[in-house]
């Protein structure tokens, strides 16, 4: 409940601001004390020391009337001189819950200002804030572009395009999935994007798919790992998540299935559908066109689209007017298996014998003919035709 959290935060800050207005004990540092030096642009040595008061006054902290020393707590007892380098702003004095989350997150050690900015700090609800919905991807990318390709993959994916290009407020930014202060790597079981939590995470927006997926073979728990056999991110590239209608995704999904179903990908690739797919034909049948996608069932499940009773109807999805005979076609034929594909196996065997005999015979024939015809020509016959005249006459 961000609004509630904000309310509490504003209330807390208002209380602090009220405290700040109370008469301070003698010797307490006022903003004027700071500005005695920091209003100037440079100090005597030419170092920039100006505090950007314009930025501060426009920021949420400025609007709340926070004093310099509320954040720069280590100069609260300033008596004319302070260390050249101040301690980091004491954000945790107010935002202690947030500081706790960050210190256990992947961003532990980063300063708050790396994301939120310094004097110009604004609430995430403020469109100008770097942490606002539409600007978050660019903010995260400022580090994560260098760390990996996630940011550009996200921006090219359907989520990134929806948010950044189309400006859809319900499209997810990085924070929607990964969280903000509590962010953890995908491999950390405490994190929001850990494998076992992915289906629920995606389902929080893609609500209509939850029941479909839950009934699929992929949602069943694997006996060995105790986890679902496949979760959303096992099939859909996480950052580059695409639309199923895009030709590129139609091509790519085959490889995604093959990550687990390697032997099936191989036999698919040897068949017509697979060959055409590999050559870039997006329309020809892919795994999901026959097996289904979110509702995929095991092939031995009678309700599966490729079960004996349903397979002709599945073929008819593309091949209008498919007859009962179509059921005997094997799109995953294994030519090395006389048990699974006897006809194709023996046809292949017969063709291999034919090829071996023809090539065996004629390559030997040529190997004998070539040297002999060279000899015949060297022995000298006028027009260059193969046999020397005297051999003809012999």
């Amino acid at each position, binding site marked *: 409940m961000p609004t509630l959290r904000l309310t509490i935060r504003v209330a807390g800050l208002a209380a602090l601001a009220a405290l700040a207005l109370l008469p301070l004990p003698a010797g307490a540092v006022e903003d004027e004390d700071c500005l005695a030096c920091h209003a100037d642009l440079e100090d005597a040595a030419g170092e920039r020391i100006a505090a950007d008061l314009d930025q501060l006054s426009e920021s949420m902290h400025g609007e709340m009337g926070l004093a310099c020393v509320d954040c720069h707590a280590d100069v609260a007892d300033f008596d004319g001189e302070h260390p050249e380098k101040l301690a980091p702003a004491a954000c945790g004095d107010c935002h202690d819950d947030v500081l706790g989350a960050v210190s256990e997150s992947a961003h532990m050690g980063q300063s708050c200002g790396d994301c939120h900015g310094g004097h110009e700090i604004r609430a995430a609800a403020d469109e100008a804030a770097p942490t606002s919905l539409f600007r978050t991807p660019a903010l995260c990318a400022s580090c994560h572009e260098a760390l990996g390709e996630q940011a550009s993959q996200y921006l090219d994916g359907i989520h990134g395009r929806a948010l950044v290009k189309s400006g859809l407020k319900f499209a997810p930014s990085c924070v929607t999935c990964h969280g903000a202060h509590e962010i953890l790597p995908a491999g950390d079981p405490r994190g929001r994007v850990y494998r076992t939590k992915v289906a629920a995470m995606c389902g929080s927006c893609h609500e209509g798919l939850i029941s479909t997926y839950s009934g699929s073979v992929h949602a069943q728990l694997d006996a060995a790992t105790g986890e679902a056999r496949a979760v959303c991110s096992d099939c859909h590239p996480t950052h580059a998540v695409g639309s199923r209608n895009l030709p590129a995704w139609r091509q790519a999904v085959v490889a995604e299935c093959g990550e687990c179903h390697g032997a099936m990908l191989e036999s698919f690739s040897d068949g017509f559908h697979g060959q055409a797919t590999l*050559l870039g034909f997006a329309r020809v049948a892919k795994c999901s066109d026959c097996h289904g996608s979110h509702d995929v069932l095991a092939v031995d499940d009678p309700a599966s689209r490729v079960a004996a009773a349903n397979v002709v109807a599945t073929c008819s999805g593309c091949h209008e*007017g*498919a007859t009962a005979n179509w059921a005997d076609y094997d799109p995953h034929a294994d030519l090395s298996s006389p048990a699974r594909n006897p006809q194709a196996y023996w046809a292949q065997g017969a063709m291999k014998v034919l090829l071996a005999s023809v090539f065996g015979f004629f390559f030997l024939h040529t190997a004998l003919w070539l040297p002999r015809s060279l000899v015949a020509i060297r022995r000298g016959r006028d027009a260059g035709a193969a046999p020397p005249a005297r051999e003809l006459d012999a």
Partner: protein
Amino acid sequence: MSAPDGSLRIQRFDAFDRTLHIALMISFLGLAASGLPLLFADRSWAQLIARAFGGYGVTGTVHRFSAVVLFATFFLHVGRLMLGTRRNGTRFMLWGPDSLVPQPRDLAQLGQHVRWFLGRGPYPRFDRYAYWEKFDYWAVFWGMAIIGCSGLVMWFPGVFLRILPGWALNVALVVHSEEALLAMVFIFTVHFFNSHLRPGKFPMDPVIFTGEVTVDELRHERAAQYERLERTGRLAPADGPSPRWLVKGGPIIGTVAVTVGWIIVFLTLWGFLQD
């Protein structure tokens, strides 16, 4: 018709057969070049060829268009044979020295030819069609039937699977691919060598474009045919000169065919070595 050097020239192939051979060459090369990428679909070079054609769709269209041309060639050839049979009777076509039907003489001449290869005998007295030429002919004939039928099954599964069982599609793909490999490698190596590239014919035998051979060539290479024609008084000159474009263009078409053919053979071998 006399050659420039004054020697008599004899007709070997008439204009109809030469035209069909050109149609056969072009459609076969089209089929080979557009089918090869599918056969090695997982190789990057295959995907490159498909893209060079203009994508998967265009590659498929080229393949089917070439197939239609080849079907037409096949039926024109068979149709003409039928008409010839009605006019001249079957005897001429099915048996004898002018027939392409394999006969005991061919087996004997294979033996004689091998003895000549080994320097153990004289050059055989071939007639109009030597045994390897008959093999070439029947290999193409059989190949067109096998590849044509299996190709049609895959092109129109909706029609054929009303009668055939579904596994016929699996068999069709196997047979189509293997027979295509056989046809491509055979034509581009054995046929090219036997008819064009072997010493004595190198770089090519133009007879398939000009239709004519000199009497001298005939006497040396096909002694039996030469003597038969001479004995029966049929050693007549060819009907007329081939069109100039055909005589000039023949070597160009031949060079293109050999180049494309060898690229395909190279890619095929490479494709198998990549496995």
